[in-house]
Protein backbone atom coordinates (compact mmCIF):
# COMPACT_ATOMS: atom_id res chain seq x y z
CA UNK A 1 0.00 0.00 0.00
CA UNK A 2 1.48 3.33 -1.03
CA UNK A 3 2.00 5.89 1.68
CA UNK A 4 -0.75 8.47 1.99
CA UNK A 5 -3.22 6.13 0.36
CA UNK A 6 -6.71 6.46 1.76
CA UNK A 7 -8.57 3.24 2.52
CA UNK A 8 -12.23 4.21 2.59
CA UNK A 9 -14.33 1.80 4.62
CA UNK A 10 -17.27 4.07 5.38
CA UNK A 11 -19.47 3.61 2.32
CA UNK A 12 -22.57 3.31 4.44
CA UNK A 13 -22.05 6.93 5.51
CA UNK A 14 -21.53 8.20 1.98
CA UNK A 15 -19.84 7.23 -1.27
CA UNK A 16 -17.62 9.10 -3.66
CA UNK A 17 -19.25 10.06 -6.96
CA UNK A 18 -18.26 7.78 -9.78
CA UNK A 19 -16.36 9.31 -12.64
CA UNK A 20 -19.31 8.77 -14.98
CA UNK A 21 -21.69 10.56 -12.62
CA UNK A 22 -19.22 13.40 -12.20
CA UNK A 23 -18.82 13.91 -15.94
CA UNK A 24 -22.56 13.92 -16.60
CA UNK A 25 -23.07 16.44 -13.84
CA UNK A 26 -20.34 18.79 -15.05
CA UNK A 27 -21.93 18.61 -18.47
CA UNK A 28 -25.35 19.36 -17.02
CA UNK A 29 -24.08 22.27 -14.94
CA UNK A 30 -22.71 23.79 -18.09
CA UNK A 31 -25.49 23.11 -20.56
CA UNK A 32 -28.71 22.63 -18.62
CA UNK A 33 -28.90 26.02 -16.89
CA UNK A 34 -32.55 26.62 -17.66
CA UNK A 35 -35.34 26.51 -15.10
CA UNK A 36 -37.33 23.36 -15.87
CA UNK A 37 -40.55 25.32 -15.35
CA UNK A 38 -39.71 27.84 -18.07
CA UNK A 39 -41.50 27.29 -21.35
CA UNK A 40 -38.76 28.41 -23.74
CA UNK A 41 -36.23 25.98 -25.14
CA UNK A 42 -33.63 26.10 -22.35
CA UNK A 43 -36.37 25.37 -19.86
CA UNK A 44 -37.81 22.54 -21.92
CA UNK A 45 -34.36 20.97 -22.21
CA UNK A 46 -33.88 21.03 -18.45
CA UNK A 47 -37.34 19.57 -18.00
CA UNK A 48 -36.61 16.82 -20.49
CA UNK A 49 -33.53 15.89 -18.46
CA UNK A 50 -35.69 15.55 -15.37
CA UNK A 51 -38.21 13.40 -17.21
CA UNK A 52 -35.42 11.12 -18.35
CA UNK A 53 -34.15 10.70 -14.78
CA UNK A 54 -37.67 10.00 -13.52
CA UNK A 55 -37.80 7.14 -16.01
CA UNK A 56 -34.47 5.82 -14.74
CA UNK A 57 -35.49 5.96 -11.09
CA UNK A 58 -38.84 4.39 -11.89
CA UNK A 59 -37.17 1.57 -13.80
CA UNK A 60 -34.75 0.95 -10.92
CA UNK A 61 -37.60 0.23 -8.52
CA UNK A 62 -40.35 -1.04 -10.80
CA UNK A 63 -42.51 2.05 -10.53
CA UNK A 64 -44.02 4.46 -13.07
CA UNK A 65 -42.22 7.71 -13.85
CA UNK A 66 -45.17 9.80 -12.65
CA UNK A 67 -44.82 8.22 -9.21
CA UNK A 68 -41.30 9.60 -8.70
CA UNK A 69 -40.70 12.92 -6.92
CA UNK A 70 -37.27 14.46 -6.43
CA UNK A 71 -36.28 15.67 -2.99
CA UNK A 72 -33.16 17.08 -1.34
CA UNK A 73 -32.26 13.60 -0.15
CA UNK A 74 -33.34 10.77 2.10
CA UNK A 75 -34.17 12.88 5.15
CA UNK A 76 -36.62 15.03 3.23
CA UNK A 77 -38.18 11.97 1.59
CA UNK A 78 -38.70 10.37 5.00
CA UNK A 79 -40.09 13.56 6.54
CA UNK A 80 -42.49 14.03 3.64
CA UNK A 81 -43.65 10.42 3.58
CA UNK A 82 -44.41 10.25 7.28
CA UNK A 83 -45.73 13.73 7.95
CA UNK A 84 -47.49 13.94 4.60
CA UNK A 85 -49.42 10.71 5.07
CA UNK A 86 -50.25 11.38 8.71
CA UNK A 87 -51.61 14.86 8.13
CA UNK A 88 -53.57 13.91 5.01
CA UNK A 89 -55.22 10.86 6.55
CA UNK A 90 -56.24 12.19 9.94
CA UNK A 91 -59.85 11.44 9.13
CA UNK A 92 -58.98 7.76 8.82
CA UNK A 93 -56.98 7.49 12.03
CA UNK A 94 -54.11 8.81 14.09
CA UNK A 95 -51.89 5.79 14.69
CA UNK A 96 -48.50 5.20 13.09
CA UNK A 97 -46.24 2.18 13.44
CA UNK A 98 -42.48 2.24 12.92
CA UNK A 99 -39.46 0.47 14.42
CA UNK A 100 -36.97 1.42 17.11
CA UNK A 101 -34.03 1.18 14.72
CA UNK A 102 -35.14 3.62 12.03
CA UNK A 103 -32.97 6.47 10.79
CA UNK A 104 -33.28 9.66 12.90
CA UNK A 105 -35.21 11.38 10.09
CA UNK A 106 -37.96 8.78 10.56
CA UNK A 107 -37.86 8.72 14.35
CA UNK A 108 -37.81 12.49 14.74
CA UNK A 109 -40.64 12.87 12.22
CA UNK A 110 -42.70 10.46 14.32
CA UNK A 111 -41.82 12.35 17.52
CA UNK A 112 -42.90 15.60 15.89
CA UNK A 113 -46.23 14.01 14.94
CA UNK A 114 -46.71 12.77 18.50
CA UNK A 115 -46.64 16.41 19.56
CA UNK A 116 -49.48 16.99 17.07
CA UNK A 117 -51.59 14.33 18.74
CA UNK A 118 -50.66 11.26 16.69
CA UNK A 119 -49.94 7.99 18.47
CA UNK A 120 -46.81 6.10 17.45
CA UNK A 121 -45.84 2.52 18.20
CA UNK A 122 -42.12 1.75 17.91
CA UNK A 123 -41.72 -1.97 17.24
CA UNK A 124 -38.74 -3.54 19.04
CA UNK A 125 -36.11 -5.71 17.35
CA UNK A 126 -34.44 -8.97 18.28
CA UNK A 127 -30.72 -9.43 19.01
CA UNK A 128 -29.99 -9.55 15.25
CA UNK A 129 -31.85 -6.32 14.53
CA UNK A 130 -34.88 -7.95 12.90
CA UNK A 131 -38.22 -6.46 13.88
CA UNK A 132 -40.39 -8.55 16.14
CA UNK A 133 -43.04 -9.35 13.57
CA UNK A 134 -45.58 -10.59 16.10
CA UNK A 135 -45.41 -7.22 17.86
CA UNK A 136 -46.15 -5.53 14.55
CA UNK A 137 -49.20 -7.72 14.01
CA UNK A 138 -50.45 -6.94 17.50
CA UNK A 139 -49.88 -3.22 17.07
CA UNK A 140 -52.10 -2.78 14.01
CA UNK A 141 -55.50 -1.42 14.89
CA UNK A 142 -58.49 0.33 13.33
CA UNK A 143 -56.78 3.71 13.75
CA UNK A 144 -53.53 2.72 12.06
CA UNK A 145 -52.86 4.77 8.94
CA UNK A 146 -49.18 4.19 8.27
CA UNK A 147 -46.42 1.63 8.75
CA UNK A 148 -42.86 2.80 8.11
CA UNK A 149 -40.12 0.17 8.35
CA UNK A 150 -36.69 0.52 6.77
CA UNK A 151 -35.57 -2.00 4.15
CA UNK A 152 -32.04 -2.34 5.53
CA UNK A 153 -30.45 -0.85 8.62
CA UNK A 154 -27.51 1.50 8.19
CA UNK A 155 -25.59 0.52 11.33
CA UNK A 156 -25.61 -3.26 11.27
CA UNK A 157 -26.99 -4.01 7.80
CA UNK A 158 -29.92 -6.17 8.91
CA UNK A 159 -32.61 -6.49 6.23
CA UNK A 160 -36.26 -6.46 7.30
CA UNK A 161 -38.99 -8.81 5.97
CA UNK A 162 -40.58 -6.07 3.88
CA UNK A 163 -42.60 -8.34 1.62
CA UNK A 164 -44.37 -9.82 4.65
CA UNK A 165 -44.85 -6.36 6.13
CA UNK A 166 -46.24 -5.04 2.84
CA UNK A 167 -48.76 -7.88 2.69
CA UNK A 168 -49.75 -7.30 6.30
CA UNK A 169 -50.23 -3.60 5.63
CA UNK A 170 -52.34 -4.28 2.54
CA UNK A 171 -54.52 -6.80 4.37
CA UNK A 172 -55.26 -4.14 6.97
CA UNK A 173 -55.69 -1.25 4.54
CA UNK A 174 -52.66 0.56 5.97
CA UNK A 175 -50.18 2.56 3.89
CA UNK A 176 -46.66 1.07 3.87
CA UNK A 177 -43.54 3.24 3.55
CA UNK A 178 -40.01 1.93 3.53
CA UNK A 179 -36.77 3.87 3.90
CA UNK A 180 -34.70 2.10 1.24
CA UNK A 181 -31.77 4.52 1.42
CA UNK A 182 -29.19 1.85 2.32
CA UNK A 183 -30.70 -0.89 0.16
CA UNK A 184 -30.65 0.58 -3.36
CA UNK A 185 -28.06 -1.19 -5.46
CA UNK A 186 -27.81 -4.14 -3.10
CA UNK A 187 -31.36 -5.43 -2.95
CA UNK A 188 -33.57 -5.83 -5.98
CA UNK A 189 -36.65 -3.81 -5.12
CA UNK A 190 -39.78 -3.91 -7.22
CA UNK A 191 -42.40 -1.81 -5.51
CA UNK A 192 -45.29 -3.34 -7.45
CA UNK A 193 -44.22 -6.95 -6.77
CA UNK A 194 -43.55 -6.31 -3.11
CA UNK A 195 -46.52 -4.02 -2.61
CA UNK A 196 -44.82 -0.86 -1.34
CA UNK A 197 -46.76 2.40 -1.26
CA UNK A 198 -43.85 4.77 -0.65
CA UNK A 199 -40.10 4.42 -0.77
CA UNK A 200 -37.20 6.78 0.07
CA UNK A 201 -34.00 7.01 -1.97
CA UNK A 202 -30.79 9.01 -1.45
CA UNK A 203 -28.27 9.43 -4.28
CA UNK A 204 -25.07 9.80 -2.27
CA UNK A 205 -25.30 6.22 -1.00
CA UNK A 206 -24.64 4.75 -4.45
CA UNK A 207 -21.99 7.02 -5.99
CA UNK A 208 -24.39 9.84 -6.76
CA UNK A 209 -24.14 13.43 -5.52
CA UNK A 210 -25.16 14.55 -2.06
CA UNK A 211 -28.25 16.68 -1.56
CA UNK A 212 -30.61 14.82 -3.87
CA UNK A 213 -32.95 11.88 -3.59
CA UNK A 214 -36.48 10.83 -4.29
CA UNK A 215 -39.72 9.68 -2.78
CA UNK A 216 -41.73 7.12 -4.70
CA UNK A 217 -45.44 7.63 -4.04
CA UNK A 218 -47.84 5.04 -5.40
CA UNK A 219 -50.51 6.57 -7.59
CA UNK A 220 -53.67 7.26 -5.64
CA UNK A 221 -51.96 7.65 -2.26
CA UNK A 222 -53.43 10.52 -0.28
CA UNK A 223 -50.48 12.62 0.90
CA UNK A 224 -50.09 16.23 1.96
CA UNK A 225 -47.59 18.49 0.24
CA UNK A 226 -44.52 18.98 2.44
CA UNK A 227 -42.62 21.79 0.74
CA UNK A 228 -45.20 24.46 -0.06
CA UNK A 229 -44.68 27.09 -2.72
CA UNK A 230 -44.68 26.83 -6.50
CA UNK A 231 -46.35 24.07 -8.45
CA UNK A 232 -43.32 22.10 -9.54
CA UNK A 233 -43.43 18.29 -9.70
CA UNK A 234 -47.17 17.99 -10.37
CA UNK A 235 -47.79 20.49 -7.56
CA UNK A 236 -46.52 17.95 -5.08
CA UNK A 237 -43.12 19.40 -4.08
CA UNK A 238 -42.30 23.07 -4.53
CA UNK A 239 -38.89 24.39 -5.47
CA UNK A 240 -36.84 24.70 -8.62
CA UNK A 241 -35.26 21.33 -9.14
CA UNK A 242 -31.51 20.75 -8.72
CA UNK A 243 -31.15 19.73 -12.34
CA UNK A 244 -27.46 18.82 -12.44
CA UNK A 245 -27.65 16.84 -9.21
CA UNK A 246 -30.73 15.05 -10.50
CA UNK A 247 -28.86 14.19 -13.71
CA UNK A 248 -26.08 12.72 -11.54
CA UNK A 249 -28.68 10.86 -9.48
CA UNK A 250 -30.13 9.33 -12.63
CA UNK A 251 -26.78 8.07 -13.86
CA UNK A 252 -25.90 6.75 -10.41
CA UNK A 253 -29.10 4.77 -9.93
CA UNK A 254 -28.91 3.37 -13.43
CA UNK A 255 -25.40 2.08 -12.79
CA UNK A 256 -26.15 0.90 -9.26
CA UNK A 257 -29.11 -1.23 -10.24
CA UNK A 258 -27.63 -2.64 -13.45
CA UNK A 259 -25.66 -5.41 -11.75
CA UNK A 260 -27.14 -6.01 -8.33
CA UNK A 261 -26.44 -9.73 -8.32
CA UNK A 262 -22.82 -9.35 -9.39
CA UNK A 263 -22.30 -6.44 -7.03
CA UNK A 264 -23.73 -8.33 -4.08
CA UNK A 265 -21.63 -11.37 -4.91
CA UNK A 266 -18.45 -9.30 -4.83
CA UNK A 267 -19.40 -7.52 -1.62
CA UNK A 268 -20.16 -10.86 -0.01
CA UNK A 269 -16.71 -12.19 -0.87
CA UNK A 270 -14.94 -9.06 0.32
CA UNK A 271 -16.90 -9.04 3.54
CA UNK A 272 -16.18 -12.72 4.11
CA UNK A 273 -12.48 -12.07 3.53
CA UNK A 274 -12.53 -9.13 5.92
CA UNK A 275 -14.23 -11.15 8.67
CA UNK A 276 -11.83 -14.07 8.24
CA UNK A 277 -8.76 -11.83 8.31
CA UNK A 278 -9.87 -9.72 11.24
CA UNK A 279 -10.98 -12.62 13.43
CA UNK A 280 -7.57 -14.24 12.89
CA UNK A 281 -5.78 -11.00 13.76
CA UNK A 282 -7.78 -9.78 16.76
CA UNK A 283 -9.30 -11.74 19.64
CA UNK A 284 -12.35 -10.95 21.77
CA UNK A 285 -14.41 -9.41 18.99
CA UNK A 286 -18.12 -9.70 18.28
CA UNK A 287 -20.01 -9.37 15.01
CA UNK A 288 -23.34 -7.55 15.19
CA UNK A 289 -26.44 -8.10 13.07
CA UNK A 290 -28.03 -10.98 11.23
CA UNK A 291 -25.82 -13.56 9.53
CA UNK A 292 -27.82 -14.01 6.36
CA UNK A 293 -30.70 -11.52 6.23
CA UNK A 294 -28.34 -8.64 5.66
CA UNK A 295 -26.53 -6.22 3.40
CA UNK A 296 -23.14 -7.59 2.38
CA UNK A 297 -21.58 -4.14 2.43
CA UNK A 298 -21.61 -3.69 6.19
CA UNK A 299 -19.63 -5.35 9.02
CA UNK A 300 -20.37 -4.04 12.51
CA UNK A 301 -17.76 -5.25 14.96
CA UNK A 302 -17.43 -4.72 18.71
CA UNK A 303 -13.87 -4.81 20.06
CA UNK A 304 -14.03 -5.79 23.69
CA UNK A 305 -12.09 -3.34 25.83
CA UNK A 306 -11.42 -0.85 23.03
CA UNK A 307 -13.68 2.18 22.69
CA UNK A 308 -14.87 2.78 19.14
CA UNK A 309 -14.06 6.45 18.64
CA UNK A 310 -10.55 5.92 19.99
CA UNK A 311 -10.00 3.12 17.43
CA UNK A 312 -11.49 5.31 14.71
CA UNK A 313 -9.05 8.17 15.40
CA UNK A 314 -6.06 5.82 15.48
CA UNK A 315 -7.12 4.54 12.06
CA UNK A 316 -7.69 8.10 10.80
CA UNK A 317 -3.98 8.73 11.33
CA UNK A 318 -3.21 5.86 8.95
CA UNK A 319 -5.67 7.10 6.33
CA UNK A 320 -8.31 4.49 7.07
CA UNK A 321 -11.86 5.84 7.37
CA UNK A 322 -14.49 4.00 9.37
CA UNK A 323 -17.50 4.82 11.51
CA UNK A 324 -18.80 4.27 15.01
CA UNK A 325 -22.57 4.13 15.44
CA UNK A 326 -24.15 5.89 12.50
CA UNK A 327 -22.69 8.90 10.73
CA UNK A 328 -25.58 11.06 11.81
CA UNK A 329 -25.03 10.22 15.43
CA UNK A 330 -21.35 11.11 15.44
CA UNK A 331 -20.64 14.07 17.65
CA UNK A 332 -23.29 12.95 20.06
CA UNK A 333 -22.44 11.30 23.33
CA UNK A 334 -24.74 8.40 23.55
CA UNK A 335 -23.99 4.86 22.46
CA UNK A 336 -25.86 3.73 19.35
CA UNK A 337 -29.59 3.33 19.98
CA UNK A 338 -29.66 0.61 17.34
CA UNK A 339 -27.16 -1.55 19.21
CA UNK A 340 -28.89 -0.89 22.52
CA UNK A 341 -32.21 -1.91 20.93
CA UNK A 342 -30.55 -5.18 19.90
CA UNK A 343 -29.79 -5.86 23.55
CA UNK A 344 -26.12 -4.86 23.61
CA UNK A 345 -24.94 -3.13 26.79
CA UNK A 346 -23.58 0.41 26.69
CA UNK A 347 -19.96 -0.76 26.93
CA UNK A 348 -20.32 -3.11 23.94
CA UNK A 349 -22.14 -0.45 21.96
CA UNK A 350 -19.38 2.03 22.77
CA UNK A 351 -16.72 -0.39 21.51
CA UNK A 352 -18.35 -0.88 18.13
CA UNK A 353 -16.89 0.11 14.79
CA UNK A 354 -18.76 -0.09 11.49
CA UNK A 355 -16.82 -1.08 8.37
CA UNK A 356 -18.65 -0.69 5.08
CA UNK A 357 -17.31 -1.79 1.70
CA UNK A 358 -17.94 -0.91 -1.91
CA UNK A 359 -17.40 -2.73 -5.18
CA UNK A 360 -14.06 -0.89 -5.35
CA UNK A 361 -12.73 -2.25 -2.06
CA UNK A 362 -9.81 -4.60 -2.72
CA UNK A 363 -8.27 -7.49 -0.79
CA UNK A 364 -5.05 -5.52 -0.61
CA UNK A 365 -6.89 -2.70 1.13
CA UNK A 366 -8.45 -5.16 3.55
CA UNK A 367 -5.04 -6.66 4.40
CA UNK A 368 -3.58 -3.23 5.10
CA UNK A 369 -6.61 -2.09 7.08
CA UNK A 370 -6.80 -5.20 9.25
CA UNK A 371 -3.13 -4.88 10.23
CA UNK A 372 -3.70 -1.23 11.23
CA UNK A 373 -6.91 -2.14 13.06
CA UNK A 374 -5.01 -4.81 14.95
CA UNK A 375 -2.38 -2.27 16.04
CA UNK A 376 -4.98 0.34 16.93
CA UNK A 377 -7.08 -2.04 19.01
CA UNK A 378 -3.95 -3.30 20.77
CA UNK A 379 -2.89 0.24 21.67
CA UNK A 380 -6.33 1.29 22.85
CA UNK A 381 -6.75 -1.91 24.87
CA UNK A 382 -3.44 -1.19 26.61
CA UNK A 383 -4.83 2.14 27.81
CA UNK A 384 -8.23 0.72 28.68
CA UNK A 385 -9.70 0.47 32.16
CA UNK A 386 -11.55 -2.62 30.99
CA UNK A 387 -9.43 -5.72 31.22
CA UNK A 388 -10.25 -8.57 28.87
CA UNK A 389 -9.74 -12.22 29.50
CA UNK A 390 -9.56 -15.45 27.58
CA UNK A 391 -9.89 -18.65 29.59
CA UNK A 392 -9.45 -16.63 32.76
CA UNK A 393 -6.11 -15.32 31.57
CA UNK A 394 -5.83 -11.57 31.31
CA UNK A 395 -4.89 -10.57 27.81
Amino acid at each position, binding site marked *: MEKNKIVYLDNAATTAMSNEVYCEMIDAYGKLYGNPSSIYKAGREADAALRSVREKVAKAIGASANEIYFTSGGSEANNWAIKGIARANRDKGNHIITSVIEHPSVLESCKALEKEGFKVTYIPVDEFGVIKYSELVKAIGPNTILISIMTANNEVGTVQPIKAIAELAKANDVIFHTDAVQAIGQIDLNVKDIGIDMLSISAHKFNGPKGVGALYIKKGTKIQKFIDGGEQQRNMRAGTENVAAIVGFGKAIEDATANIEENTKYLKSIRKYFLKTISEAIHNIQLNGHNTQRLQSIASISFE*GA*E*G*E*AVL*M*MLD*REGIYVSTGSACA*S*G*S*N*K*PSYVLLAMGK*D*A*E*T*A*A*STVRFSFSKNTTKEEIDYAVEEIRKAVKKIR*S*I*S*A*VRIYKNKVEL
Partner: protein
Amino acid sequence: MEYTEELLNEFYNPANVGVIKAASAVGKIVDDENGEIMKIYISVEKNKIVDAKFQTYGCVPSIACSSMATKMMIGLTLEEAAASITASAIVKELGGKLSDTKTRSAEMAEKAVKAAVKNYSKK
Protein backbone atom coordinates in the same frame (compact mmCIF):
# COMPACT_ATOMS: atom_id res chain seq x y z
CA MET B 1 -16.83 17.99 15.52
CA GLU B 2 -13.28 19.24 15.84
CA TYR B 3 -10.65 18.25 18.32
CA THR B 4 -7.77 20.62 18.97
CA GLU B 5 -4.25 19.73 17.91
CA GLU B 6 -3.23 19.60 21.59
CA LEU B 7 -6.04 17.22 22.51
CA LEU B 8 -5.26 14.89 19.63
CA ASN B 9 -1.55 14.91 20.49
CA GLU B 10 -2.36 13.97 24.04
CA PHE B 11 -4.60 11.17 22.77
CA TYR B 12 -2.00 9.83 20.34
CA ASN B 13 0.79 10.06 22.93
CA PRO B 14 -0.77 9.57 26.33
CA ALA B 15 1.41 9.85 29.40
CA ASN B 16 1.33 7.73 32.54
CA VAL B 17 -0.68 4.83 31.14
CA GLY B 18 -1.03 1.87 33.46
CA VAL B 19 -1.47 0.92 37.10
CA ILE B 20 0.49 1.58 40.26
CA LYS B 21 0.80 -1.66 42.17
CA ALA B 22 0.20 -1.01 45.86
CA ALA B 23 -1.04 2.48 44.98
CA SER B 24 -1.70 4.90 47.82
CA ALA B 25 -5.22 5.34 46.43
CA VAL B 26 -7.35 4.84 43.33
CA GLY B 27 -10.09 7.06 41.96
CA LYS B 28 -12.56 5.20 39.71
CA ILE B 29 -15.40 6.88 37.86
CA VAL B 30 -17.97 4.94 35.86
CA ASP B 31 -20.31 6.52 33.31
CA ASP B 32 -23.01 3.88 32.88
CA GLU B 33 -24.95 5.82 30.29
CA ASN B 34 -22.05 6.02 27.85
CA GLY B 35 -20.29 2.89 28.99
CA GLU B 36 -17.05 4.69 29.96
CA ILE B 37 -14.68 3.93 32.83
CA MET B 38 -11.81 6.04 34.13
CA LYS B 39 -9.28 5.01 36.81
CA ILE B 40 -6.56 7.18 38.31
CA TYR B 41 -3.92 5.62 40.58
CA ILE B 42 -1.81 7.81 42.88
CA SER B 43 1.35 7.36 44.94
CA VAL B 44 1.51 9.75 47.86
CA GLU B 45 4.51 10.67 50.03
CA LYS B 46 4.25 13.26 52.78
CA ASN B 47 0.96 14.57 51.39
CA LYS B 48 2.50 15.06 47.96
CA ILE B 49 1.49 13.14 44.82
CA VAL B 50 4.76 11.65 43.58
CA ASP B 51 3.32 9.44 40.88
CA ALA B 52 0.03 9.09 39.02
CA LYS B 53 -1.17 6.65 36.38
CA PHE B 54 -4.42 6.19 34.53
CA GLN B 55 -6.48 3.61 32.66
CA THR B 56 -9.43 4.77 30.61
CA TYR B 57 -12.03 2.94 28.59
CA GLY B 58 -13.54 5.86 26.71
CA CYS B 59 -13.59 8.15 23.74
CA VAL B 60 -10.75 10.30 22.43
CA PRO B 61 -11.28 13.27 24.80
CA SER B 62 -11.74 10.95 27.78
CA ILE B 63 -8.34 9.39 27.16
CA ALA B 64 -6.74 12.79 26.55
CA CYS B 65 -8.29 14.40 29.66
CA SER B 66 -7.35 11.59 32.03
CA SER B 67 -3.81 11.54 30.65
CA MET B 68 -3.51 15.30 31.10
CA ALA B 69 -4.95 15.08 34.62
CA THR B 70 -2.18 12.68 35.69
CA LYS B 71 0.45 15.03 34.25
CA MET B 72 -1.04 17.97 36.13
CA MET B 73 -1.24 16.04 39.42
CA ILE B 74 2.34 14.94 39.85
CA GLY B 75 4.20 17.22 42.26
CA LEU B 76 1.08 18.74 43.81
CA THR B 77 -0.22 18.19 47.31
CA LEU B 78 -3.50 16.35 47.63
CA GLU B 79 -5.34 19.59 48.42
CA GLU B 80 -3.77 21.42 45.50
CA ALA B 81 -4.71 18.60 43.16
CA ALA B 82 -8.33 18.47 44.29
CA ALA B 83 -8.66 22.25 44.05
CA SER B 84 -6.80 23.09 40.85
CA ILE B 85 -7.46 20.17 38.53
CA THR B 86 -10.89 21.20 37.30
CA ALA B 87 -12.57 20.34 34.01
CA SER B 88 -11.87 23.80 32.63
CA ALA B 89 -8.23 23.68 33.73
CA ILE B 90 -7.83 20.36 31.91
CA VAL B 91 -9.52 21.68 28.78
CA LYS B 92 -7.25 24.75 28.91
CA GLU B 93 -4.18 22.51 28.82
CA LEU B 94 -5.66 20.70 25.84
CA GLY B 95 -6.08 23.68 23.54
CA GLY B 96 -8.87 25.43 25.41
CA LYS B 97 -11.74 24.11 23.29
CA LEU B 98 -14.01 21.13 23.78
CA SER B 99 -17.51 20.75 22.34
CA ASP B 100 -20.52 20.73 24.67
CA THR B 101 -21.20 17.07 24.10
CA LYS B 102 -17.66 16.16 25.17
CA THR B 103 -17.10 18.35 28.23
CA ARG B 104 -18.26 15.35 30.23
CA SER B 105 -14.84 13.79 29.49
CA ALA B 106 -13.06 16.62 31.28
CA GLU B 107 -15.63 16.52 34.08
CA MET B 108 -15.07 12.79 34.45
CA ALA B 109 -11.30 13.35 34.78
CA GLU B 110 -11.88 16.04 37.42
CA LYS B 111 -14.09 13.63 39.34
CA ALA B 112 -11.51 10.85 39.08
CA VAL B 113 -8.82 13.13 40.55
CA LYS B 114 -11.10 14.15 43.41
CA ALA B 115 -12.08 10.53 43.99
CA ALA B 116 -8.43 9.45 44.27
CA VAL B 117 -7.72 12.26 46.75
CA LYS B 118 -10.82 11.47 48.76
CA ASN B 119 -10.02 7.75 48.87
CA TYR B 120 -6.53 8.51 50.20
CA SER B 121 -7.93 10.72 52.92
CA LYS B 122 -10.38 8.01 53.93
CA LYS B 123 -7.62 5.55 54.78
